[in-house]
C-alpha cells in the first residue's frame, strides 16, 4: 500500500480516471449539444415543424457524456466504492484503471464537439432539404463511431484489469 501525502494512491488514481471519463465526455457533449441546440433553435424559430427531426440531431452529440458516465460508473463499481466496501487498489492497478478511462475521456471530448458541429451542419440540410433528412442523420452518426470505439476500448480495458 503506497500512500501519497496520506492518500491512498491506487484508489485515488482510479477515481481520477473515472472523473476524467465523466467530465471530459460531459464537456464534449455539452459543447456539441450546445452548438447543435443553438442552430436548432434558429431553425425552429423560422420553421417550428422541423422540431422533431432537429431534436434527434441535437441529441446525437449527447451520447459522449453518457458513455463517459458509463465508464466512470464501471470503474466505481469495479473498485467497490458503491457497495461501501472499497477494494484495496495497488498503485499499479490504480494506474491501469486511470489509463483505461482515457480512451473514452478524450474520444468523448473531441468527438462530442465535432459531432455537435456536424449535427449543426446537418440541421442546415434538414432546414434546406427536408427530404434529405435521413442522409443528414447519417453524417453526425459517423462521428459517433469513434466515441463508441473509445467506449469499447475503455470497457474492454476495465474488464481486463484484475483486482
Amino acid at each position, binding site marked *: 500500500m503506497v500512500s501519497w501525502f496520506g492518500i491512498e494512491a491506487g484508489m485515488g488514481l482510479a477515481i481520477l480516471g473515472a472523473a476524467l471519463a465523466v467530465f471530459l465526455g460531459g464537456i464534449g457533449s455539452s*459543447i456539441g449539444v*450546445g*452548438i*447543435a441546440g*443553438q*442552430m*436548432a*433553435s*434558429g*431553425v*425552429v*424559430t*423560422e*420553421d417550428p415543424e*422541423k422540431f422533431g427531426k432537429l431534436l434527434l440531431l441535437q441529441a446525437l452529440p449527447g451520447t459522449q457524456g453518457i458513455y463517459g458516465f458509463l465508464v466512470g460508473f464501471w470503474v466505481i463499481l469495479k473498485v467497490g466504492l458503491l457497495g461501501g466496501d472499497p477494494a484495496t487498489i495497488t498503485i499499479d492497478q490504480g494506474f491501469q484503471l486511470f489509463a483505461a478511462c482515457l480512451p473514452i475521456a478524450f474520444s468523448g471530448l473531441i468527438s462530442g*464537439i465535432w459531432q455537435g*458541429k*456536424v449535427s*449543426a*451542419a446537418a*440541421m*442546415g440540410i434538414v*432546414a*434546406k432539404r427536408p427530404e434529405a433528412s435521413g442522409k443528414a442523420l447519417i453524417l453526425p452518426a459517423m462521428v459517433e463511431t469513434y466515441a463508441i470505439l473509445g467506449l469499447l476500448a475503455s470497457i474492454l480495458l476495465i474488464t481486463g484489469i484484475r483486482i
Partner: protein
Amino acid sequence: MSISQDSRYAYAVGRIRVLENKLLDKTKMQRLQNAKSVDEALLVLSETDYADLVAKAPNPYDIDAITTEEIKRVYLLIRELLPKEALADLFLIKYDIHNLKVLLKAHYQKKDFDYLLVDAGLVPAETIKSVLKNDQLPSIPKEYYEGVKAAKAAYEERQDPKVIDEVLDRTQTAMVADMASKGGHEFYRRLLAAQVDLVNLKSLARVKRLGRGRAFLDDSLLPGGTLAPSFFTPLYGSDWAQLVQAFSLTPYKAVVEQGVAAYLESGQLTTLEKLADNFQMTMLREAKMFALGPEPIIAYVMAKENEVRNIRIIMIGKKNGVATAEIAERLRESYV
C-alpha cells in the same frame, strides 16, 4: 475556427438556413420575368416571401418602396441575430456614405436635397445632417469625418462634384475592409477585394468607352483589391484585345473575355457589368460550404441585395414595357 466562433453564429446560421429557402429561386424569377404585365408580376410576387409587403404597401406599383422595405428588414434581422457583432454594419456603411455624398453635394449647390437621404445607415440621417451643418464633425465615426474633410478639400481644389463621390467611395471601401479584417471576416474580405477589382475593371472599361482620359481613370480607381490600381492604368491606352490579354492570368479572365466581346458587338457594357456581378455571386456561393460561422449570414444579406435588385429590374422593366429578353439580359444570377 474556434468553438466560441461556432457557437456564436450557430443560432443565426440556423435561422438563415431556413430563410435561404425563401429566397426566390430560378423558377420563381423566371415566372416573374415572363409575367405579361405589372399586375401579373405582382401576383407572382404575392406567392413569395414578399406577399406581406405587397399586400401592405400603400401603392404596390411603387416597387422601390417594397424593395427598400425588404432590404431594411434583412438588415434589422441581422442586427437582431447578432446583436454584439458589427456584421450588419458592414452593409450599412454604404448608406451613410450615400448620405454624406448627398449632403456635401447639396451643401455646395446651396439647395435642399433631403428627400434623397436614406435612413438606413449606422448614424441616423438627421444626425449626420446636423453634424455637417454645425461643423461638429468629430461626433460621427472618425472615418466619416476624415472622408468628409478629404472630400471637401478635393472639391474645393477641383470644383468637380465627382471627386466627392470618388473620395467617399474610397472611404467606404477602406472602412468596410478594415471592419471586415477586425471582425475576422476573411470570407468577406476576399469578396470585397474581388468586388474592388471588378469595380476597377468596370471603371476602366467605362472610361475607355467614354474616352475620358487617363486622369479620369486614375481618379476613379479604388485601392484595396487584389490587383493594384497600377495594373489598370496602363491598360487605358491599350486596345481591347490587349486588355483581354492582360486579364488572362487573373480570375476575371472569363468575365473580361465575354464582357469585352459583348461590348465590341453591341457597344454596351451591360454584359460586362452583369458578368462581374455573377462572378461575385459565384464567390458568394462558396458560403454554402460553410456549415457554421458568419459566411452564410454574409452570403444571405448579399443574396438578398441581389434579389431585390433583380426584382426592381424586372418590375421597372414590366412597368415601362421593356421586352422580356431585354430584361433577362440584365438580370443577375441568383444565389439559390
